[in-house]
């Protein structure tokens, strides 16, 4: 499980960006829960990894923020900027290529269609 987490680590930004592309806007806690739900608990984004990644992508101009008052507290939502959308497409292509290549190495007889 721990080794698997290491494999996911390199794709953290891409995962976050893909989720934001699908959902429109999300807040930090929602991202961790969504990932847990989709992967049925297999992948766990730690808080220590999530926020530095979000703040870095915000500083790089890939994410925009929006704040709202919800249930007696302030919530910070993240959404993709225009350059963030382009970056997501390019990162997803890279990730798909990576998965395809890994698949070819691990199981040459299996074909994957993306």
């Amino acid at each position: 499980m721990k080794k698997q987490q290491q494999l996911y680590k390199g794709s953290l930004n891409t995962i976050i960006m893909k989720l934001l592309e699908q959902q429109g806007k999300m807040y930090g806690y929602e991202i961790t829960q969504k990932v847990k739900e989709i992967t049925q608990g297999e992948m766990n984004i730690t808080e220590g990894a999530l926020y530095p990644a979000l703040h870095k992508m915000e500083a790089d101009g890939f994410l925009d923020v929006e704040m709202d008052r919800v249930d007696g507290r302030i919530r910070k939502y993240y959404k993709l900027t225009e350059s963030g959308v382009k970056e997501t497409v390019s990162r997803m292509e890279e990730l798909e290529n990576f998965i395809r290549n890994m698949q070819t190495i691990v199981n040459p007889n299996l074909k994957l269609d993306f």
Partner: protein
Amino acid sequence: MKLTTDQINHIDYVLRNDYSFEHFDDLRIELLDHITSDVELSIEKNSITFEEALPIVLHKWNDEITCDRNSYYNSVPIIVAKLWKKLDWKYNYFVLLLTGILCFGSMPFGREDWVTYMMYIFGGIGFVLGIYLLNLLRRNQFNTVLSMYAKNKIKLYVGLFAFALIANLALNYSDGDLLSCPALFGIIHTTLVFAMRTILMRKNIKIENQLLKVI
């Protein structure tokens, strides 16, 4: 189960006082929402009280929200120190490298008085930028991770800039020429520091405007 305002205020108090988040309004607000959501889920899932759930959730965060006494930034939470260390590459090390290139790279190509002229042009830009930056810091309404980074050692840089500029002016005046520029490194470096921190503070205005909408 949704937490009450008092319970949310208690978490906010803990973050401010037990975990040194007093001066990082933007990050504290974000963590407050995350921790509150986590506590709410924990109460619901495990049928425990708020008093029982909060320490469990805070324990999960311990590696990020405590201060690392061995770090260079040892008085701020680790999550802030991590971001500041990343900013250091762009706003400190790169600036130092650029200063070195400008200082030592310009020397072989021009006459000594040209280098001094260039230094004073930088000094003029630095003076304007310095005043603009100090004004941005003065008008700053929220303490954020970026604004606190921009404020860090700013008095030292302003003092260094003023001292370097005045000392060089006095030297040139007493010599009656523009051949000496011992303050070249200091003036160029502080001017670049002011420029980079001004960029940071301009970014910070966007964060402030978001905070102003909800607070």
